[in-house]
């Protein structure tokens, strides 16, 4: 292989890493805020999947990408807030509710997808996806420009959100309150501040991020909905949060590692490396298992995570 060819492959692989990282980063950052608020929401996978379907169906039906995008976000918020009603207001077990949401989303999207195909006379309509936005000037930098600065607007947003959420959590009083919720919600309650209101808000933010991530899968990274297309990304987000020890920057690193494994897997299939493709497909998940075994560090895990708050 010529050196130029190798370089082109590497650039393509790293650019793919950044592209693939975007939805994973969005959903992970959203789930981080949710978990910091003390709620262990296992239903992100389902929320993202429902959002992907809503984004797809509405954008096809309305023939507008942006309406589809907002529909996806709206669906993400709706599913997340259903979690809030069940676990914050009704105090149902968080794990069971999250798992239930995943099962429901998987079945419901499949059903609706089949129904919608009937409506479209059996053809699979596609959307014309969002285009990448080359940032003026810096996208011309050799190699780096190609990797980082010719991406979807959502990708820039996703990376920016890491900084925004970090600043929110550690530099604002509302962030302090969200972190306190995950550690000791009573500390807020005794000051007369609403615990449930803040948990609803955290879930609404998580829903926005998961909805956006689902919409990005359909409207930017591909051009159609495929049943169960989230393919474990929501679960991966939970692994990423544990691997990133509930901190924004380590979570970014973990996302990039998993995105790289995924990109590597795609490239390796493309150039015909002599590795069974099933093994390549499994790479990110093998990585997740290794990360779970290897990373025993959970020092930042919120102490009150997953425990519903009761006044005495």
């Amino acid at each position, binding site marked *: 292989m010529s050196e130029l060819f190798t370089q082109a492959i590497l650039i393509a692989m790293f650019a793919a890493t950044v592209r693939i990282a975007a939805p994973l980063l969005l959903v992970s950052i959203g789930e981080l805020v949710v978990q910091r608020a003390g709620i262990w929401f296992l239903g992100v996978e389902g929320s993202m999947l429902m959002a992907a379907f809503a984004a797809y169906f509405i954008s096809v039906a309305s023939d507008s990408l942006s309406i589809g995008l907002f529909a996806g976000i709206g669906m993400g918020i709706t599913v997340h807030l259903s979690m809030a009603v069940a676990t914050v207001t009704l105090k149902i077990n968080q794990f069971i509710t999250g798992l239930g949401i995943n099962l429901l989303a998987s079945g419901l999207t499949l059903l609706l997808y089949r129904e919608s195909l009937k409506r479209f006379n059996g053809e699979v309509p596609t959307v014309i996806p969002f285009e990448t936005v080359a940032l003026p000037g810096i996208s011309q930098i050799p190699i780096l420009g190609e990797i980082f600065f010719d991406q979807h607007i959502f990708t820039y947003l996703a990376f920016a959100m890491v900084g925004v959420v970090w600043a929110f959590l550690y530099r604002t009083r509302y962030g302090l309150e969200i972190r306190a919720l995950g*550690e*000791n919600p009573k500390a807020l309650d*005794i000051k007369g501040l609403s615990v449930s209101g803040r948990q609803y808000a955290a879930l609404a933010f998580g829903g926005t991020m998961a909805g956006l991530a689902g919409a990005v899968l359909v409207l930017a990274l591909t051009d159609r909905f495929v049943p169960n297309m989230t393919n474990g990304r929501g679960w991966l987000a939970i692994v990423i949060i544990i691997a990133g020890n509930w901190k924004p920057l380590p979570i970014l690193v973990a996302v990039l590692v998993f995105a790289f494994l995924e990109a590597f897997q795609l490239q390796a299939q493309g150039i015909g490396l002599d590795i069974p493709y099933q093994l390549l497909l499994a790479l990110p998940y093998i990585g997740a298992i290794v990360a779970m075994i290897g990373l025993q560090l959970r020092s930042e895990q919120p102490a009150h995570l997953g425990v519903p708050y009761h006044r005495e």
Partner: protein
Amino acid sequence: MTAEQNPPRLEVHGLTKTFGPVIANTDVSFNVARGEILCLLGENGAGKSTLSSCLYGFYRPDKGQILCDGMPVSFNSPRDAIARGIGMVHQHFVLVPSMTVVENIILGTHDHGWALNLEKKARKISDLCARYDISLDLNAKIWQLSVGEQQWVEIIKVLFLDAEVLILDEPTAVLTPHESKKLFAILQKMTADNLSIILISHKLEEVLQSDKIVVLRKGRIVGNVRTVDTTRSDLTSMMVGRPVMLRAERTDITPGAPVLQVSNLTVLNDKGQTAVNTMTFTVHEHEILGIAGVSGNGQTELFEALIGVRDSQTGHIQLSGKDLTHHSPMDAITNGIGYIPDDRFRAGLVGPFSVEDNTILGIQKRAEFADGPILNRRRIRNFARDAIDRFGIVTPGPQTRTDTLSGGNAQKVILAREFWSATKCILANQPTRGLDVGIIEYVHQILLEKRHKGFAIVLASEELEDILALSDRIAVVSKGQIMGVFHADEANIDQLGLLMAGQALENAA
């Protein structure tokens, strides 16, 4: 104007609060003036906590009125109470261990805007600390602080909200005697600043440092007196509803042969740190060895090692000359050791099990309760009925779930079981923690009875009064080490307190 003409800072009129059929407070009225310490005294379940929760806006009273400076107020949430200058220091710390002192204090305080303004707020906190002579590292994380320092954080947290009435719920429960003294010095400074204090307590020596005392029993006020006009025994009989013997009668008996011999015992805690450091002591027949110390100084690990649930690193444990080192709990039980753990529902009982099942936990294999592998329900029930009678356990019946019992009755279930199976030695770790005066009296009597019968007893308590009243000898522990052993008649409370704080005797002098 003179003080008498001013309306009280906080006044309660005819307050009644019920939870369904349960009446927590009935027609409670009292007031507290500026610069005054009022004490709410009462047993567990007397309604002190409900009352303070009403004052703090956590609950809404069903009937009655709360007045601030003569103006009727109504609290929908703690925010309203805070706005009226009422602050509360809760019995169990409400802190976030992973956050700093400053973060904990400013958490949820409502300035406008998003910014934290850490420096500005840290300055206000430093001023408060200086005013009340409290030294705190504001940037330390809460988990790095001692229990006493955490209590100061709780107090500063309330003062930071500009509270003028401070409700303190059992504030000395976790403090060393030295820290308690300091707390009262702080409270005196506050009253000098015209702040009002409502102190909830059941410790008589603290209660007597207040200006006036309101005694609650079963949700009603049974006494409202000025402190100078009352005595300890008056207060106790008001609280319990009958005269109580404050000091158990301890007869002189000469100790017999050694029973429990511990030498050079070293034990690790769950984190792998040394919790018990080369302890050596012997307990004889007819003897109570008191272990005095602030909890968390190795007592629980020591007891767990003696009963066999925690292995020792070095040293030996002997019972009547028989080596028990590295023994199992079953070895301990069959050799006649009884164990009363400090956390009764974590280590002594299975909450959802019935009273009768809990009375035979650990001894269920014995022929009295089982025919081979099959439990004999009839004999177990008879045994439990007998235990309920003998120990006066208040329960609907032997098949009632144990976690529905009050703390005192749950403790009696443990006593019934352990005193039945023990034949030589009793290990009692905080046997009266959280119990009412009446039951404490009972536990003390029954321990002395066992001493009379020839048992060797190891008794740990945070209450020096208990230790002094019951023990023949007293070992003071700090950081897993025995700091000194005294005969009960030679010991005095100040000396023990200093040793408990970890000071060696020569420094203390």
